[in-house]
């Protein structure tokens, strides 16, 4: 079965699977940053050397648009999808739908097949159930185990969750764009500092999952239900971004969160600009900027100090 290398949560695994392909989640290698370039985007730009029969990625920000461009010249089919950049725009939604259809055409043209009647709906409903199972474990399992479960579900696989167990510590949200694989030590650091990641608000965490699907809508028009769900994944880059902040406010209240940990890449303008409004949610916030090597101890100190302030 051909493999689609996916570098974004906005590529629905169910769509890929319904076209007879399997999903391999891309793991961009961390890169030393050059001035002005986001490390994640630079890592994505290096994916041309990674195995996969085709590549799909989304470009919600300028850094990713530039990274995607460097991959477009690749010998394997590469499809860049653009989730809506603005709210409440039928045209933006239609553009995203057209991008997904374009991906579908590429998958069909390179060894896949058009979804059989009902195939997409069944895949979506199965995925929906798996995502619900994952969300139910938020804050009840170690952060790394949760992220890995999300990654499995985003590939279209079962969640493979460990059993929930009582965790002790103050409940926090981890927010940011992407936690590249070499940065997952942060999750262990948070767990080990007396913090419970009750909300993983990174692209590779719970925030990157589409919301619960309307089962009737899925049966009526699976493609439309899919587009609407994936187009509304909470994202501060979609303007105006009140939807993202409402999602966060709801989660803060529902999960009794005590603080916010922001993890961002250097040169990520979008998340840097969001800090004032994130602070306006009224919770203690620590802003951590990713780096390589020796920065880890500095970050440990800051996380531990932050945990202490939460009591």
């Amino acid at each position: 079965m051909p493999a689609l290398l996916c570098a974004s949560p906005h590529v629905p695994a169910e769509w890929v699977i319904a076209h007879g392909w399997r999903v391999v989640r891309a793991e961009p290698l961390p890169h030393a940053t050059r001035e002005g370039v986001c490390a994640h985007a630079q890592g994505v730009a290096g994916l041309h050397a990674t195995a996969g029969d085709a590549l799909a990625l989304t470009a919600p920000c300028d850094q990713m648009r530039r990274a995607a461009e460097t991959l477009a010249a690749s010998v394997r089919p590469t499809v860049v999808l653009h989730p809506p950049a603005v709210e409440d725009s039928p045209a933006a939604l239609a553009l995203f739908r057209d991008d997904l259809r374009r991906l579908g055409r590429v998958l069909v043209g390179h060894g896949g097949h058009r979804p059989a009647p009902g195939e997409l709906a069944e895949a979506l409903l199965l995925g929906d159930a798996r995502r619900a199972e994952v969300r139910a474990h938020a804050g009840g399992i170690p952060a790394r185990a949760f992220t890995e479960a999300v990654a499995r579900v985003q590939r279209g696989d079962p969640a493979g969750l460990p059993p929930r167990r009582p965790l002790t510590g103050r409940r926090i949200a981890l927010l940011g764009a992407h936690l590249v694989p070499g940065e997952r030590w942060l999750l262990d650091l948070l767990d080990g500092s007396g913090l419970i990641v009750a909300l993983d608000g990174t692209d590779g965490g719970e925030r990157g999952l589409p919301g619960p699907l309307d089962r009737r809508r899925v049966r009526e028009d699976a493609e439309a239900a899919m587009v609407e769900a994936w187009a509304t994944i909470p994202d501060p880059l979609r303007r105006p971004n009140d939807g993202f902040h409402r999602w966060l406010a709801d989660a803060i209240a529902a999960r009794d969160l005590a603080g916010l940990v922001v993890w961002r890449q250097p040169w990520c303008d979008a998340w840097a600009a969001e800090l004032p409004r994130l602070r306006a949610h009224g919770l203690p916030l620590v802003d951590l900027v990713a780096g390589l090597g020796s920065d880890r101890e500095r970050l440990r100190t800051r996380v531990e100090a932050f945990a202490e302030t939460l009591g």
Partner: protein
Amino acid sequence: MIAPSLLRLDLAGWDHRHAAMVAAGESEPWPYGGALSRWLAKGDRRLARLRFDPSWAGLRLWNFLLSEEDRLRAHRAAGRTLVGTMKDLGTVPVIADALGLVPFYPDGAWWIPCVMELDDRLLQHAERLGIGPEFCPVRAMLGAYATGAHFPLPDLNVCSAGAVCDDFPAIAERLRDLGHQVLFWQIPVRRAPDPDEAVVALADGTPCPASLVAACARELRRVGEALAWLAGMPLDPAALRTAIARANAIRATARALRAECARAPRAPLPALELMIADMLTIHFCSDIGECPAVLAGLLAEVRARVAAGAGVLAADAVPVFWLNPPADLAALPLLEELGGRLVGADFMVGHALLAIPEDDEPFTALARCALADPLVGGAQARARAAVAAARAAGARALVIARIPGASHCAWEGEAARAAAAAAGLPAVELEIPPVLEPVEGRLRTRLEALLEMAR
């Protein structure tokens, strides 16, 4: 040898000439006329460093530009509705004009720190609001909104998002936090059509998937509906066509000016005035009635100089193509001081110079221009287009002006340098801050080396 009458003037020189010309009976039958030095007195300190074209047409251009804030305040006092159009650089103002609204680009505030030599403290204001030096100098716009000390605050802001720049939508989002209304609209990322896709030619001839043009047109229609609501009247298709024709007349003059300057054996107009002329096309400097005359005067001056074989620079000035507007206006005169000459440029407003097709449905026509924005199609396409344009204009060198903190520049420089190298065109990438003095030595050295290589 440059004729004495064509030597560029500093402020004192222009004051002297202005007084002499007024005494000799020359008049400035436009309300914004007067000595340039009055702008220095108002705080535009950078003018003291610059050198200006010595013509009456050049003076008119500068006074027209520098009086824009006064004009906007007069519009506000007269009860007109102001629209802050952002980022799209040239498209939405045409729609606003059709509705009798006054559009302007608050983006232009990015030059305030330069023009006021940082006295304005707009960048500090922006930093206090969470937008610091890692962002592009357009963050000065946020400071301008926060202080209200420059342009009158618009009744509505309209900002494009989705294809260009992360800084801008992020800053516009902060404007919302300050209580300003912002309507965002999505401009699609331009890509090459697939073999099985319907294709539409953009205003510059670039083939584009029809689906992207249709989506962009649909978004512009949504913007039109919002502006019509603001104006309290429906958008009349005939009025939109008239506005397109009006914009096209201005664009045609600007294109003619560029063409005359590029092909003339000697530079008939300094680079700074050329760049300002380009910029007038994006929103007509808040006076669509006056803008055509300003550009026409400049064009007439240029044509007269070309006919006389005269120029403002030495005959052996090295022809250069310039990519990106410099954050400091003084960078262009610096190029000329070192022996360079601007024969072409991509100041990020190239699509505002294109003729909007008048034989198409108006919103589709506007979309065909908006999608021709050099930044919407990616760094590689932009680099190839810039090098091709440089070659066509006879440029022997390429200057890539990196804008500090701009998300696109970090990637584009590499693409532009590679495209230039492949074409055998010497190129240099220079980061130019809003006030270039701290890095002037480095800029001089690198520009000199480039020009030396290109001679």
